[in-house]
């Protein structure tokens, strides 16, 4: 299959990379801003694909090399004709101090990508807002919450556990006012 690296979409690239790694027995989960892009159909556009894997970076590197992505620094990979940047962040895949309990799978013509559920994607973005007051992350959380069906009870439970109820209420207020 011929791939147009310059025009490939983030979902398709994530699926292609995931599939290539899976063929070599390497499991990954896509986290971070790329999930927001996928869930919002690029209303927020990320050029950064963050994967979590328990595999050795050396093994990952060998697979990515086969599809033309070169290791740029310890955990980053780039391909000169592709606008996206791939990073393998340190495991475990977690939201706050909780391991992920669920995952989502999206299939494309290039393969299947395993990624955060929409609810976990909202929590992931809110985590950046809670800890660093990052309002861009808050906006991204709202975009996902508006574009996808999410479990607000779960977001509330987790926010309370993170001791960020006030910020959760702020998120909820903004979400409802912009609906």
């Amino acid at each position, binding site marked *: 299959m011929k791939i147009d690296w310059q025009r490939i979409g983030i979902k398709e690239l994530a699926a292609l990379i995931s599939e290539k790694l899976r063929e070599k027995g390497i499991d990954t989960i896509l986290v971070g801003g790329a999930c927001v892009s996928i869930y919002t159909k690029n209303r927020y556009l990320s050029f950064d694909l963050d994967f979590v894997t328990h595999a050795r970076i050396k093994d990952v590197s060998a697979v990515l090399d086969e599809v033309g992505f070169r290791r740029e620094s310890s955990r980053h990979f780039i391909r000169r004709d592709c606008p996206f940047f791939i990073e393998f962040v*340190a495991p475990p895949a*977690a939201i706050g*101090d909780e391991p992920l309990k669920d995952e989502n799978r999206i299939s494309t013509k290039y393969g299947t990508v395993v990624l955060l559920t929409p609810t976990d994607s909202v929590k992931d973005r809110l985590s950046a807002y809670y800890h660093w007051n990052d309002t861009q992350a808050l906006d991204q959380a709202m975009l996902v919450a508006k574009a996808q069906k999410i479990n607000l009870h779960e977001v509330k439970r987790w926010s309370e556990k993170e001791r960020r109820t006030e910020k959760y209420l702020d998120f909820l207020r903004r979400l409802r006012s912009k609906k």
Partner: protein
Amino acid sequence: MLEGVFGNITIEKILFMLYVYGEGYPLGFAKTFGEPVNRFQQQLRRLENAGIVISRLIGKVRLYTFNPRYPFLEELKALVAKAYEFLPDKEKKAYYTKRTRPRRAGKPL
């Protein structure tokens, strides 16, 4: 004390510094301990790759803190806190009791 767990003494020093002061930068660590700056830069990069610390650039200084999103942060801090208790007073005084309150610019010493 934690060298056996973390593999080297530099990591232990970084973790104690972050535990005591909340933040730090490579040159500050190097000056405090009178050691080469690249030794700290290398280990801070290692900790950052592992998701244990995060950094941000302030002017020309890369400032490091614990990563509040690291899932084992509470447990790690508890371990560091416990080990810090066992540190000899002489060492605590030499390295971990720097002035942290502000000093107005231009104020004579």
